[in-house]
């Protein structure tokens, strides 16, 4: 099993992704620099968090045109698994691999806190090791995580059950109080139509080691591991 972690100038969660993938996917992990044209036979590609290209113009807007993204788009088009976390989610939206966009938090504040997120579906390659309705505590660290889409796109996402993670209160209730950034429908993470591309604002890769007191992020990696093991 081979995992690639794409690194842009300004990525800063790349090592967290690398480490989590290395420990939980049980295979080779390699970095792919943004100028490279080869994902080197990766089975899964991570777009990590950070501030690619300084988030100039819009978060993800310039990263989306970096050479490696051509490969990521081709890989996704062939059904390859792609996970974008935080800035990676913004890049996926800018690239059109996921619908909608992430704008400035409604509070205007950068939020670096733990939030609660409900797993909406477990019949996906990214969430099979969670329980449906399970509430995870995951860290967020972003200023632009406010998910927006036009009414039609939003209705489609909901109708096709492509909202995978939703901000909630610890009880699992979907409320404004549980929504850290103003995202429409409390959306924290969505999947593409085919089910091979996931984007989410929270950072599961930061909570995989018991020494840090929270392992709620492990399920995502365990699910990917299962999906890839099943595919071969």
């Amino acid at each position, binding site marked *: 099993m081979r995992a690639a972690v794409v690194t842009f100038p300004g990525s800063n969660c790349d090592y967290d992704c690398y480490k989590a993938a290395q420990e939980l996917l049980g295979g080779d992990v390699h970095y792919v620099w943004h100028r490279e044209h080869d994902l080197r036979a990766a089975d899964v590609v991570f777009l990590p968090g950070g501030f690619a290209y300084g988030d100039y*113009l*819009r978060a993800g*807007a*310039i990263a989306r*045109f970096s050479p490696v993204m051509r490969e990521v788009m081709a890989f996704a088009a062939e059904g390859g698994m792609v996970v974008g976390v935080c800035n990676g989610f913004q890049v996926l*939206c*800018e690239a059109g691999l996921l*619908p*909608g*966009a992430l*704008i*400035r*938090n*409604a*509070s*205007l504040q950068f939020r670096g806190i733990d939030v609660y997120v409900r797993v909406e579906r477990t019949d996906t390659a990214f969430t099979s090791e969670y329980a449906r309705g399970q509430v995870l505590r995951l860290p967020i660290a972003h200023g632009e995580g*406010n998910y*927006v*889409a*036009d009414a039609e796109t939003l209705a489609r996402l909901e109708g096709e059950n492509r909202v995978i993670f939703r901000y909630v209160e610890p009880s699992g209730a979907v409320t404004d109080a549980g929504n850290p950034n*103003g995202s429409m429908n409390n959306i924290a993470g969505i999947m593409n139509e085919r089910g091979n591309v996931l984007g989410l604002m929270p950072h599961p890769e930061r909570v995989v080691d018991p020494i840090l007191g929270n392992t709620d992020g492990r399920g995502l990696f365990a699910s990917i591991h299962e999906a890839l093991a099943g595919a071969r």
Partner: protein
Amino acid sequence: MSDFDVEVRITPRAGLLDPQGNAVAHALRALEFPGVGDVRIGRLIRLRLSADSADAARQQTDRMCRKLLANPVTEDYDIRVES
């Protein structure tokens, strides 16, 4: 070919929440400008562009907006071309 000064004004789409605009509207009202209504905050991009005509410059800039300068999901844009 001639050189054109092009201005692109990018604003949050009508109807879309503009958290910055809202915050500034509140601040202005607090500063005793009670007449302040809706505030929208966007971005102004100025660029020099060589093109065959003003029309060609506009068309090129429109393509730039659609590809990179504006996000069609969240932003509207408006192009001005001066020679």
